């Protein structure tokens, strides 16, 4: 479904990605693991159009995404839950969710709203509340729910576990697996490698801007390098 090849991205003089390539097949959960500064966020931002690559290709179902502005990439079925959630603090929960469906003109929006508040009942209770007053976990649910309102084919998730208590992390990952079972393909960036590998089908390890390892989730979880560097053994 998504194919990234030989991607080079730089911030001015700083080269953040050097020849990154990865594939995401329809229906998969694929995870990108890596330490701080490895280039995970940069990869997602380039896919969703927030950053322009110096070189390389990004294709979604045979169509190139390079040079397409972010607001049009959403229309092609890619929704991005950014690092740090980036919900609209001054908007209500409902307004945040409706912004997720902003470009949609189809009749399916109310049904998707229903689906999101079923996935996250907390959001239903707080639907008229200003989003800035939500707890961290609720904000993460809102960020994911808001992206689902675009009814995406591909969902990009950047560290959904960041800053959450372990119980909540587990709950969020269960929901991500649910979303995937309902038919959405997922590209998941995580530092919590154990959790990510527990729900992913395949994964990549990113080290200083390049892919160091690739394999199925089981292969990666059994790999001694991965166990030492990312699973804390």
């Amino acid at each position: 479904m998504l194919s990234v090849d030989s991607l080079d991205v730089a911030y001015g003089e700083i080269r953040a990605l050097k020849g990154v390539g990865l594939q995401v097949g329809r229906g998969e959960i694929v995870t990108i693991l890596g330490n701080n500064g490895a280039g995970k966020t940069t990869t997602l931002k380039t896919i969703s159009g927030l950053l322009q690559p110096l070189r390389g290709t990004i294709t979604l179902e045979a169509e190139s995404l390079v040079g397409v502005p972010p607001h049009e990439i959403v229309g092609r079925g890619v929704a991005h839950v950014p690092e740090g959630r980036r919900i609209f603090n001054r908007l209500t929960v409902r307004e945040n969710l409706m912004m997720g469906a902003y470009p949609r003109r189809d009749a399916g929006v109310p049904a998707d709203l229903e689906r999101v508040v079923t996935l996250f009942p907390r959001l239903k209770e707080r639907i008229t509340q200003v989003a800035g007053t939500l707890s961290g976990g609720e904000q993460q649910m809102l960020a994911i729910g808001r992206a689902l309102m675009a009814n995406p084919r591909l969902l990009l998730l950047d560290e959904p576990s960041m800053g959450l208590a372990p119980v909540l992390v587990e709950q969020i990952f269960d929901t991500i697996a649910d979303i995937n079972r309902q038919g959405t393909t997922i590209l998941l960036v995580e530092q919590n490698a154990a959790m990510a590998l527990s729900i992913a089908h395949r994964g990549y390890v990113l080290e200083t801007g390049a892919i160091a390892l690739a394999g199925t989730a089981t292969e990666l979880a059994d790999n001694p390098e991965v166990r030492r560097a990312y699973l804390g053994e």
Partner: protein
Amino acid sequence: MDYPLLLGIFPQVFLDGIILGFMYALIALGYTMVYGVLEFINFAHSEIFIVGAFVGVELLLGLKSVGLLDGLPWPLVLFLTLVAGMAASGLLAVTVERVAYRPLRNAPRLIPLISAIGISFFLQDLIRLFESLWRNAFNLVYPTIDVLNLRFELTETIDVSVKSLVVIVAALLMLWALHVIVNRTTIGTAIRAVAEDQAAASLMGINVNRIISLTFLIGGAMGGAAGVLFGVQYGLINPYTGFIPGLKAFTAAVLGGIGNIPGAMLGGLVLGLLEAFAASYLSLLTGGAFGAEYKDIFAFSVLIVILIFRPKGLLGEIVRERA
């Protein structure tokens, strides 16, 4: 001290203050909306405002020259004038953004500010050039519509002109419409989303540049409406008339909390009332030691005091954000 006199003129002064305040509020919206999305002070907004007044006066003079000013019903004439002023100022604001600000979006902050000041001078002199070629005139006077100058006596000491009522009603309608657009429509929610986080808004599928243009369009149109109402109310305009009301409206926006829409409305009203009361009461209360010419000093001293205690303005930062 002459207490009956002080009390007697109170309603009249209050009314004057409200009218001036609505004028400031309408102009202040243009500053505050643009600041809300771009964190940038559009210093050319005072000229965008006065262009509305000029388009209004040109339309009225044009109607007059073909004999339609008294031929058409006056509410229609006023409505057309307002629409023309709003359209002209709105489109001008969009053009200015496109030409002078957007190419500088990623430049250091001072650069677009200087561009705005340049546009401000450019527009002043462009209006001056146009009017000197077209009418050989510097000052223009809004033609009178007789109905508008009728006055009702409310009591023995207070009377209201039709014109004042029209200005108040028009301003209220405009502020209400803006409130509905910004708070009750999807496009208005998108404006607020872009104001908060442009990158996140673009990830929602919002075309950020289009929303920025729309913000300039709405803010410019409000300024144009204020321009027409200013002309109708005070009559005399010249190419440099926009500067002082613009500066005061900007102050009103800061007073209310820059970037905050209800704040701009409140700030405008507070400033208008302060100014009106200072103009009428200073000399009465100080036995003539300070005359009406001190009104700005008084009004701005109060503003400074308010800002010392509320640096973010009256309504600034009411929402506390969690990390």
